[in-house]
């Protein structure tokens, strides 16, 4: 059968979908259900869904979220480098370059702290 060759992929999809569906279902089935006004809101991030849409939005949350995403993705980028370059002739180059990359991230982090990017008020 043709699909046999792709069994691992199909399995991965199945497991991923199953994991997501199972989590939602399990928490719905077994979780304690204590409703409160805040919890009934559509957006759990705190944005109020009813009222005039054109009003000032507090961007602090988004700023921090964006910065988090930034560092998150950058760090995630290191994993493939490590796996790919393990058998590479110039692996020390890759290693050095990752350090350089980290240094750049640190400069960015220092800049963000210095400019008050992570302060809530």
């Amino acid at each position, binding site marked *: 059968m043709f699909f046999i060759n792709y069994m691992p992929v199909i399995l991965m999809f199945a497991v991923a979908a199953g994991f997501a569906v199972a989590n939602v279902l399990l928490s719905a089935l077994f979780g304690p259900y204590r409703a409160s006004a805040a919890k009934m809101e559509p957006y759990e991030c705190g944005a109020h869904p009813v009222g005039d849409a054109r009003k000032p939005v507090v961007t602090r949350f988004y700023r921090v979220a964006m910065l988090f995403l930034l560092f998150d993705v950058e760090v995630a980028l290191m994993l493939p480098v490590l796996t790919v370059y393990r058998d590479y002739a110039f692996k020390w180059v890759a290693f050095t370059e990752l350090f350089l990359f980290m240094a*750049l991230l640190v400069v960015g982090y220092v800049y963000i702290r*210095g400019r008050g990017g992570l302060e809530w008020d």
Partner: protein
Amino acid sequence: MSSWLQASNWLVMLPEMIIAFFALIILLVAAFTKDSEAPYPESLAITGLALAFISSYYIPEGVGYYGQVAVDSVSRTAFSIAILGGMLVLGVVPSQFGTDTMRSETSALVLFSLCGVGFMVTAQHLIMLFLGIELLSLPLYIMAGMRTRDPRSREAALKYFIVGAFASALMLFGMAIYLGANGDLLMNHFALSFQKNAVPPTLIFFAGWILISTAMLFKLGAVPFHMWVLDVYQGSPSSITAFMTFAPKIAAFFALAKMWPLGSESGLSTPISMMYLLSFLTMTAGNMMALMQRNIKRMLAYSSIAHGGYMLMAFLISGTEGIHALLFYLAVYALMNIGAFTVITLVAPSRDPELSIISLSGLAKTHTYLAVALAICLFSLTGLPPFGGFMAKFFLIKAVLASGNVYIALAAIFNSLLSAYYYLRVVLVMTTREPLAADSDELISPSAGFTSIGLSSRIALAVAIIGVVISGISPDFFARIISL
């Protein structure tokens, strides 16, 4: 260790590294100081650029960084032009932003952007080119929105970002197709495919080629990929607009030159006729639209589109002559635009914020020197001797004529004729109209405007104007300065 140092030949990227290093230093300094007590971040940035400029004297020509980049005399000159222009723009930035807002960030962003220019003009690999284009563009998106209180500035930033992202997406799509057609992303497949007597490229290759070229044409504002230019140029702070007029153009032109067959050297007729059309459309549409403008920044935006159209003619010329004419044109063009936008930056506070052309009435009486500077830039943009704009057009049109493309040269000449109409109208308004009542009480003596301007922008303006004049009087000398 030394073997990989040699193999990587990272020295060819030394100017970019210096620039990036200084940008980081500026950010670190900014992290520990307040905006109002910032120790002139521009001077730090200009120092960095000067070091990068000097270092580009000494770096060897050749391929570097595992074949990702290659430095030759053309790319080096193009990058030097961008660096020198960036230095001038950094001189104007303080007058634009005053002492309170984001000057460190602006300086650092200009440096990062120039780094992107460097990668783009030297790139030998499409990934490198893509990195360059993003490194060039992202700071520009931010700088376009630097005047956060001005809705136009915010609009400019957002539009630029969205359209730029669209172009990047198309380019990535094109790169994917290119990878499929060639098996890797090295840019020399372009040159190999367009060689005379080469195996004709496949259609799939052409699909990738068009998509990638489109991204470059977008960057240099060729019709019909030009519409972002207007709102972005108008909304951005004027000194940043000056930077936008030349830095992306330099990068895009020389990236395009690596992926487009020059003149008839490929033996394929389609790329030539395509460039013929693009060039004609760009210069004509730019000029026609510029005629209708009442706002000086929009007018200059259309004019920059039209100039892009003239410069596209360089791709109709085989051999190096077209590229050299293009380099000269870009250098002069950068100076003229820096001059014009600097004057706009400096007079803007005392005029109406929308900067209609009429608001420049009587500038010759109130700010004599600035009016003269602007007039020189406009004469030069029109292409009148003895200014650089004439020489730039002269060299380019001469080369185009020599390559046998008579009609497009004629079109360029007629377009220049038409452009005189809207450029010289500004001069007319400056000299013959009385100053508007609102301005006349605050600006009394001819030098009044001069004393209130920061020293650095004064120097930058003077250098730009002297450059425009020198390039017209002694193009040889000028070419020697910019081409190291």
